[in-house]
């Protein structure tokens, strides 16, 4: 379980990215974090695994406060938190297998990772994850030889290879086409359900968020302005988060697009 307690972040430039953000995420819950650009979504998830140093508040993961950790303790905390990135952030010149195995870096000593001598369990786990994301045949390819959707699958496998207790997902679909986006969201959702894993997903696409998450948190100017079920995300709420816009129109367009989708796609999407 993850608990944020009055988490705040003010950058050195004086910009307040987060002010007093508090919420809890129970095990197995997939939370969609929405809000306009610059609302602090990225900062929020990076404060959780300390890629960004919070300036105040607490981040409590299964009983330990992550904000005060340093050195090896911080490493051990980070390895419990899987992260999936917007532009995949794979190491492009490494193979797919090395990218997945890099999820074990927090567990193995440097000399082992340097020689690529991972334990048989780690390697077997990596193979099994690659199969789960549908990339069994690609393990020796270089990451930059893959398509966008395939790279994001490797990113998911890398995060799951960590045996995480929490998944942080930063705009997973921002550089993907609509169909691939849905496949990736479905994959993340099912991975979380299977492992009873809580997740926080930063996402721009409101409809995608509503469809694939259990709960939505709306962030505006560093403050939580909405926290509730996806169904409760009415036009008024959207206006509160993003400002004025014709929301009915947006929903209408998406529904029309969905109906025209051929049913065969759904079969392939499970891959």
């Amino acid at each position: 379980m993850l608990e944020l307690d009055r988490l705040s972040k003010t950058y050195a430039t004086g910009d307040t990215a987060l002010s007093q953000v508090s919420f809890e995420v129970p095990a197995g819950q997939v939370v969609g974090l929405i809000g306009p650009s610059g609302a602090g979504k990225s900062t929020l998830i990076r404060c959780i695994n300390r890629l960004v140093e919070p300036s105040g508040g607490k981040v409590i993961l299964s009983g330990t406060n992550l904000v005060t950790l340093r050195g090896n303790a911080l490493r051990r905390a980070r390895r419990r938190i899987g992260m999936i990135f917007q532009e995949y952030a794979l190491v492009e010149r490494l193979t797919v297998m090395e990218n997945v195995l890099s999820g074990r870096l927090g567990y193995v000593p440097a000399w082992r990772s340097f020689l690529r001598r991972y334990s048989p369990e780690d390697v077997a786990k990596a193979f099994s994850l690659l199969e789960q994301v549908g990339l069994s045949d690609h393990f020796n390819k270089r990451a930059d030889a893959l398509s966008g959707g395939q790279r994001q699958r490797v990113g998911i496998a890398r995060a799951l290879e960590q045996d995480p207790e929490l998944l942080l997902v930063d705009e997973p679909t921002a550089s993907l086409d609509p169909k691939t986006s849905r496949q990736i969201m479905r994959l993340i959702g099912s991975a979380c359900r299977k492992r009873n894993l809580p997740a926080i997903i930063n996402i721009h696409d409101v409809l995608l968020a509503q469809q694939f998450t259990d709960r939505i948190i709306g962030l505006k100017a560093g403050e939580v302005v909405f926290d509730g079920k996806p169904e409760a995300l009415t036009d008024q709420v959207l206006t509160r988060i993003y400002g004025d816009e014709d929301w009915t129109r947006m929903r209408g367009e998406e529904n029309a697009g969905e109906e025209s989708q051929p049913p065969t796609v759904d079969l392939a999407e499970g891959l």
Partner: protein
Amino acid sequence: MAVQSYPGRWKRPPVLLTNPFWRRAIYTGALVYLVLALQSVEIDWQRVWLGLDRGWKFIEGFLVPDFTTRWRDIREGLVESLTMTLTSTVAGILVSVPIGIGAARNLAPAPIYLVCRSIITLSRSFQEVIIAILLVAMFGFGPFAGFLTLSFATIGFLSKLLAEDIEECDRSQIEAIRATGAGWWQVVNYAVQPQVMPRLVGLSLYRLDINFRESAVIGIVGAGGIGATLNTAIDRYEYDSAGAILIIIIAIVLVVEYSSSWIRRWVQ
């Protein structure tokens, strides 16, 4: 309905000197300076004529190179130069990789960064010939001084460019590896090394090339190698032997150049 008329002419606004007065003043000043400076150069046309004559003799020697008469000297100098080049490049790379990493702002803490940067600045502020003169005075004539000179120069060159390359690394890849709980060495090994390796190989080969050419130059101030042989040949007015040496140097540089571009493509 009134039709709006738009201007049909557009001129690119001046980028650097926006004030027209200063623009004209600076351009005129530069022109006046150039004319005055050219007038101050004293050219002794007679001396130029004499030099052309000598140059022609040199070219004559170049056209009929003599590889045989001094072959033993040439071979000795060549082996010395090649040994010096290779050993100094390897030693230079071994030292510059840690210094380069230490001089990258995104990897090293401030004190280490400053130390490594000052080593680089020190190495880069002296031209090879000056270092060679100093080291020859310290360790005597011969290839050891040359080896030290080239290693030292390699450090400045390679560390600086490596550090810059590390600083330009894709930050998201580093962030992703850090997020897995990787330690500092693992971040270097998994996120930085794959990104900079092709460039490091390319730069090392380029430095090998430079070191060979420099070994010919520093030989002239007494640091051994083919440069010393070349110097002796010119001192003895043996332009045909000197021509042979120059042809060999050019050939070797060409071979290194071609093979390095091939290797660079291969490691990409």
